[in-house]
């Protein structure tokens, strides 16, 4: 009986555990993939999907567990081991050399015969051969920089295919692509299966999964459920498996009568990059005393929107009105002076200066206020007093303010940034993924701070990829999908999580009323 399980499956990962520091990424995860099938792994962000396949590809090493390939127990210590076992992985992020041609990208790196002279003709021949074999029409001589994202993704896949792997892993191959390009890639997966290959692919677009997968493994908090036969599953059932069924009752209920005047108005905001529309038709208003939650996955445009709102990027169209003033093209100093604060997601490069001292990081937003300086000169005593106060709030009162910020731990740094922005006393505070690195207590304190601001008639915008992180304080959710606001939920205390997630993955079109 046991023998047959091992023989039947091309790949078998059993009881896999993986920890990154304090975080457990995989808890007793299992993966069973039948030969010559397309196997999808689905789950919300940070459920452990990538970690699982990265272990298979030899990029990460598991702490505990077994891997069996074709009925043989194997040890995968490096990417090379994995390649020898016939496993090839296409990574989530494109890693092509933009200035090289398609042929050069395919073959110039890792030529098997180093003594052979690389000629353009030979490269082209090899490239044409492999493209014919997998029925892909790309010009081997065109520069990668001139290709569309879909074509780049194809080159990336070809690069893996040229080693003739028996097992092909694709980590979110369609997440950057538009529908047509994604369609193309999915067709390719099917033809790979026809070739007799085993395909594993990760996605959070359930519609794609339903289209091409034979079997599906669902991941949630590092655990696996499944595999399920696709033909016996409905999309709704999958949703429920991915996100759980519970409906939550919340304490905080949206009460429009408690909100004040309009503080922020976004009109038809739009952002293009190299001819691609990344953000479109974004319009909403925010009132004083409101906490607005913005949800969306990484390519949904949420992060772009937050950066535009604070002035780190200039929009291609539309208007941002703050306190009745058009701030669309105002620079960040003006925005800060008008009363906007920002906790960015990139805390190590944008939110802080790691090479600067702690006090230099703390005073950045108050450097011109009388708290810290005369009009021109800094007041050292006041700086030290202020910094000590901030450090005390962050629970690291013993730190020397003269030390560089990189001596702080990730969590302390994040608390420092949040404390700094709150103490700047803005009327609108924008948080981008603020929970990173915060423990439960700090997160609760942050929520209390948000509620305090709300009660004082100030406003908060908080973005998150985890839909339920701030559900107990947020008044209203906006959900971004593919660069647009796909829906809006008032927090009436009875939000159905599944509905929010459906909107995040684009299941629900236009629910705004």
């Amino acid at each position: 009986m046991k023998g047959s399980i091992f023989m039947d499956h091309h790949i078998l990962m059993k009881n896999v555990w993986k920890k990154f520091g304090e975080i457990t990424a995989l808890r007793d995860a299992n993966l069973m993939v039948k030969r010559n099938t397309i196997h999808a792994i689905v789950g919300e962000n940070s459920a452990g999907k990538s970690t699982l396949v990265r272990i298979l590809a030899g990029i990460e090493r598991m702490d505990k567990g077994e891997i069996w390939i074709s009925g043989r127990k194997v040890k995968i210590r490096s990417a090379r081991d994995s390649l020898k076992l016939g496993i090839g992985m296409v990574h989530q992020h494109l890693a092509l050399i933009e200035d090289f041609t398609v042929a050069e990208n395919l073959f110039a790196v890792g030529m098997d015969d180093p003594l052979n002279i690389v000629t353009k003709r030979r490269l082209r021949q090899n490239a044409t051969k492999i493209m014919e074999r997998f029925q892909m029409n790309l010009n081997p001589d065109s520069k990668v920089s001139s290709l569309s994202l879909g074509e780049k993704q194809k080159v990336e896949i070809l690069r893996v295919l040229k080693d003739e792997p028996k097992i092909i892993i694709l980590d979110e191959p369609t997440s950057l692509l538009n529908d047509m390009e994604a369609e193309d890639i999915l067709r390719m997966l099917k033809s790979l299966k026809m070739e007799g290959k085993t395909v594993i692919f990760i996605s959070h677009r359930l519609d794609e999964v339903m289209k091409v997968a034979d079997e599906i493994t669902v991941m949630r908090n590092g655990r696996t459920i499944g595999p399920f036969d696709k033909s016996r599953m409905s999309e709704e059932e999958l949703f429920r498996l991915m996100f759980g069924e519970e409906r939550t009752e919340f304490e905080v209920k949206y009460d429009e009568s408690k909100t004040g005047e309009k503080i922020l108005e976004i009109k038809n905001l739009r952002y293009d990059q190299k001819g691609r529309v990344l953000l479109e038709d974004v319009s909403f208003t925010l009132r004083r005393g409101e906490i607005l939650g913005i949800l969306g996955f990484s390519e949904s445009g949420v992060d772009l929107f937050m950066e535009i709102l604070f002035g780190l990027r200039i929009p291609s169209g539309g208007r941002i009105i703050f306190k009745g003033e058009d701030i669309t093209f105002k620079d960040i100093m003006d925005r800060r002076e008008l009363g906007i604060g920002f906790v960015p997601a990139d805390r190590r490069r944008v939110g802080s200066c790691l090479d600067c001292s702690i006090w230099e990081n703390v005073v950045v937003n108050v450097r011109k206020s009388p708290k810290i300086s005369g009009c021109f000169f800094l007041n050292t005593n006041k700086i030290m007093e202020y910094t000590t106060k901030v450090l005390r709030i962050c629970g690291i009162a013993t730190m020397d303010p003269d030390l560089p910020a990189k001596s702080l731990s990730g969590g302390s740094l994040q608390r420092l940034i949040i404390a700094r922005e709150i103490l700047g006393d803005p009327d609108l505070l924008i948080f981008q993924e603020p929970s990173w690195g915060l423990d439960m207590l700090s997160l609760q304190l942050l929520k209390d701070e948000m509620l305090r601001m709300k009660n004082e008639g100030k406003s908060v915008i908080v973005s998150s990829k985890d839909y339920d992180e701030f559900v107990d304080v947020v008044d209203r959710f906006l959900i971004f999908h593919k660069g647009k606001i796909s829906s809006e939920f008032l927090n009436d205390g009875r939000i159905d999580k599944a509905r929010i997630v459906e909107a995040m993955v684009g299941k629900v079109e236009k629910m705004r009323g």
Partner: protein
Amino acid sequence: MRRGKEFLRTLGIICLSLIFAIVVISIVSEDPISSLKAFFLGPFTNLYFFGNMLTLSIPLMFTGLGFSAGFVSGYFNLGLEGQVYFSSLVATILGLQLGENNPYLFILILPVLSFVVGGSVSMISGMLKIKHGISEVISSFLIGIILIHLANSLIEGPLLDENSPISATPYLPKDLSFPNFEAFGNLHLGILFAFCSILIMDVVLRRSVLGYEMKLVGKNELFSRYGGVKVERILMISAFLSGGFAGMAGTVDILGIHHRMVRGFSYGYGWNGIAVALISRNRPLFIIPASIFFAFLEVGSQMASIFGDMTPELSKMIQAVVFYLVTAEGIFRFFKGRRR
């Protein structure tokens, strides 16, 4: 701790270069003992030599300060040499044309004028960097070279003093020169100008909002932008200060020593200024000992050639060693910082 380490590294570089000097002198000299003695002790044997050493350090203080003022914000000014030379020519021309009537006023006006000229030249590179993304490393260097040739052609052409045996302009009006501290050789008022500039810059960098913003831009541009610093403006200010101090270097030298523009008088001030700035690690006060050290190498070598059997080129060799060591390290630090 970190500062201690940096200090040790600087000390190491200085020691290495001095060891290099000892080795070279020992190998080349017929009478190494007296050459070494002249090299190391010569500059301190009497006030005259000591004064000349201090005099020689004055332009280095300015160019060092100039490079530093740009470097703190990540503005890498390689055009110091041209800025020194060209601004002193402009100052000289103005001094020749208008200085006759109000010489004492012009003693003050000319350094300020050359500050503005040098700063403006440097701001061209700053503008190219901000508007068109052209690296200031290249543009400032090239503009500097153009200006040097332009200035030379003026000195050799319309401004040449026909009666002079060397390529130089006519002398400035007699009273248009810095008073001289007689006992100390050539030492002149310029050293006070240098001290004041360094002191002001030190206070600005350590104690002012502007200095804070300059350092922030140098260390992390993204964070500065996020913090509301007007990065472009700060870069322009840095570029201006950088070229400005360089511009003063030459004029102060002319007002103090040459009293006219002599072709090639400033050769090397710019480059040695970079080394001085890197040794002092962007702390203006340390520029004083660093430039005196460089001047010491120069004067020491002269001593060794007068009282021993060395050639004055010795100083160039040692300075080159220091230059290689500190720039290698400095550039490494600069680009490492920039990548973040």
